[in-house]
């Protein structure tokens, strides 16, 4: 007396992939959706809870074309918040794997490698949190050469590799070196006092963004970057060189990076920069790296004010 059939449902396929097992424990409480910042910041249709539901209801095509499948950057904020301990990013990764197998492609803009500049050093392979770049052999002018290539379905566009590439061979629309340096006040007659590089994910609430925008542009210049991992210490030096008195780099709290380990990469870089400047006896070392947690509403104001006070211009704001 068995009603079992041999057809495998979409849910069965997802559950068969490691990480997808606990899918059906979801009771749709919505914690993951509100813990994640993608819906508020990027895509109103982004909703992990609904993706899990689509899998359970056998809605294969909808799941494969859902922005949730492609935009999850596996930061795992939702995993630590989920009361059912479902590893949601792994379930989404399982759906994504099936989507790629079915021939779907990521709608995100990936980074591009300029093969004329690439030396095949492999640093991008080491820094990428998503294992998107890999090295391959190619014949160039009759000689075998090693070059980097990027899996466009894995690239989340964080720009960590763009910053890491020693030859500037990698770029992505919106976060290329040129686009960031263009925003710096080079050759400006009235440079701002403070240049702030801000990771778009470190400020959760719109109230905090409002604080950032409340400073006059000739006092604080805000440069948005997708992740502090995108920061190149040269950008900070260039900002000082162009006349700004201080640089503030603002990223997410450790463990809360939207791109898994971008803030870790940034911490290493900023510490190295700090050590280097100390060794040079650099006179005005007003460069600071701060990490703001999701619950620290309003902290950005204190950090900017502290920086302005340090260079003696706080009274201007009051």
């Amino acid at each position: 007396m068995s009603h079992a059939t041999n057809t495998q449902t979409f849910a069965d396929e997802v559950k068969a992939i490691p990480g997808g097992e606990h899918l059906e424990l979801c009771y749709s409480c919505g914690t993951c959706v509100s813990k994640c910042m993608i819906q508020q910041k990027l895509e109103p249709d982004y909703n992990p809870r609904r993706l899990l539901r689509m899998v359970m209801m056998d809605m294969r095509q909808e799941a494969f074309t859902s922005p949730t499948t492609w935009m999850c950057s596996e930061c795992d904020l939702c995993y630590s918040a989920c009361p059912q301990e479902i590893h949601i990013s792994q379930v989404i990764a399982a759906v994504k794997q099936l989507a790629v197998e079915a021939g779907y492609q990521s709608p995100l803009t990936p980074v591009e490698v300029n093969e004329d500049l690439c030396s095949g050093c492999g640093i991008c392979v080491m820094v990428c949190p998503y294992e998107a770049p890999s090295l391959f052999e190619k014949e160039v002018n009759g000689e075998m050469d090693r070059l980097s290539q990027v899996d466009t379905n894995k690239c989340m566009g964080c720009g960590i590799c763009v910053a890491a590439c020693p030859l500037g061979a990698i770029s992505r629309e919106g976060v290329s070196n040129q686009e960031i340096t263009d925003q710096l006040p080079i050759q400006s007659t009235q440079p701002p006092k403070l240049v702030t590089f801000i990771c778009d994910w470190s400020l959760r609430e719109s109230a905090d963004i409002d604080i950032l925008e409340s400073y006059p542009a000739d006092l604080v210049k805000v440069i948005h970057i997708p992740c502090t991992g995108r920061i190149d210490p040269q950008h900070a030096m260039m900002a000082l060189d162009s006349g700004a008195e201080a640089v503030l780099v603002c990223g997410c709290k450790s463990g809360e990076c939207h791109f898994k380990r971008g803030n870790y990469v940034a911490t290493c870089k900023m510490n190295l920069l700090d050590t280097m400047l100390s060794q040079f006896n650099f006179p005005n070392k007003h460069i600071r790296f701060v990490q703001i947690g999701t619950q620290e509403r309003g902290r950005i104001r204190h950090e900017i004010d502290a920086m302005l006070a340090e260079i003696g211009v706080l009274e201007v704001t009051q």
Partner: protein
Amino acid sequence: MVDAARHPRIDVRTYTEVEKVEGFVGNFNVTLREKAKYVLADRCNGCGDCAQACPIEVPNYFEMNLAPRKAVYVPMSQSVPLIYTIDLDACIHCYKCVDACGPLEAIDFSQEDKVVEEEIGAIVVATGFSHFDPSVMEEYGYGVYPNVITSMEMERLNNSAGPTAGNLIRPSDHTNPQKLAFINCVGSRDKRYVQSCSNFCCMYSIKNAVLLKQMNPDVDITIYYIDIRTPSKGYEEFYDRAREMGIHFIQGRPSLITEDEQTHNLFVHSEDIALGRVIEREYDMIMLNQAAIPQPDQGHMSSVLNVAQSPGGWFMEYHPKLRPMDSPTDGIFFAGACQGPKDIPSSVAQGSAASSRASRILHSEKWEIEPTVAVVWPDRCSATTRGKACGICAKVCPYGAINIFDPETPAEVVTAKCHGCGACVAECPEDAITQLHFTDAQILAQMRAVLADEPEKKILAFRCHWCSYGGADLAGTSHFEYTANERGLRVMCSARMDTDFIYEAYRLGAGAVLYSGCHPQDCHYITGQLIGAKRANRLKKIFDRMEMTKGRFRVEWVSAAEGDKYARVLNEMQEVLDNIPPEELKAEIEKLKPQMSKRLRKFPGVPGVQEAMDYSDTLVDAIIHQKETA
């Protein structure tokens, strides 16, 4: 409560701890520690002059630590009996209370704890529940943001006898909050903290919201929930009323609360599931509905009373549906949330049931028990044969029903305490204990009868009375098809499934044996299944060493609701047998027979077994003869 205290036949003992419970139904011997109050109960009139004079203030537990109390105090103004107590941990021995008490001379610092023994007929346990500490959930900021409080704290703030005389104020600036939110399921339904639903919080938050809305219709109240559970009579109507009053309900478990550092207003981040959108809303004050958890000393209490705990830590009832107020130990009953989180109507119902159960004992001359109790043959006990009792029976008994007073006296079963699981019977290495109606001889006779004819084709299934027997029954009534070669044998508990029975089954040539019982948390005899499981695992290893084909001996825990599982297991076992060529199976059975016989060499010596064997042999002969003539 006052009525109870005044009743001539009710003796209220407050500030008293139960230290030891011995004996059995109708004859408990309970040791109580009456803690020193340092105030003489017969002199104190509860006037409170001492508390007024006392200069020491400590947090008041009853007021959720929102208000102070003195070092000499009553827990609350309605305390029964109204006798003050001195908290010596806080007292500085200034003796101002002694002066204040004056001619009553009720204060006596020389008082000491008194240990008394009482003879008790029946015990009702009503120790209640405790609250989950929400400060471990950092995302809600309890203990960090002043305006995030628990609903219990809100109740005190809103109570006319509470610290603010019923004026609900928010802690940060003492203003009246206008925008309030309740958050349900804080810590409950959460695998990281408390897995279960706390049962009453939905109604509790609706009640509080309605109460606040009635007092001030202008306040804006929101309840965040995962699911609203209103399963009892009139509850759904109450939920409807709350919505009609304008209380907002948002389905979506908040993931984060942030605070504005200037105003101390709070921002709740959640998904509105109806909209599928993330929303951020501002509130003046937030109340958390924490999960209900067992009392911190519930484990200690369970060992004092010798009653088991369910997986969540609550006291375990005799039967979850049919006897929720009875403990597995006769004469001990549960009332209220100590057995599991429940609301007031359910607690009242269970309390009434428990007290009527208890009074049934108090009004009985005799107490009837199940007849399937264990009995010791004193002449076979190692205390008699070797002069030293091994004590295994006393160790395995889940009820502590076996007494071994000294090593030279045979074990003694306290019949009133015995529930008839049969653990001691199966474990006794001397076969010195038997269980009435489930004697070795009786079970053996059944085994020989079912294995009389073509035993190598048969699957002998040992089922426990409460679970796997029910599972097999359900498989039958649900028409789940399973192999017709199964032969079921019922015992009360998997703890009774003696190794001798399994060896004997294989010696008789059985094709396969199933060892089945309850899941560990379902065991009807507290820890009987654990004893059975341990033995079954030992048997598995033994049979592996004997190189028996895998699958011929199988151990499965099947609940009474798992008819499908029972059928599946049997079918899988049949498949194992089908996959062994008949000659190979016969050869294996013959090969193992001497080893089984060796392990069974003491078995025929058990009283009744030889007779049962002889008798059943004549039956078996008759069966085979009948078959041949047919």
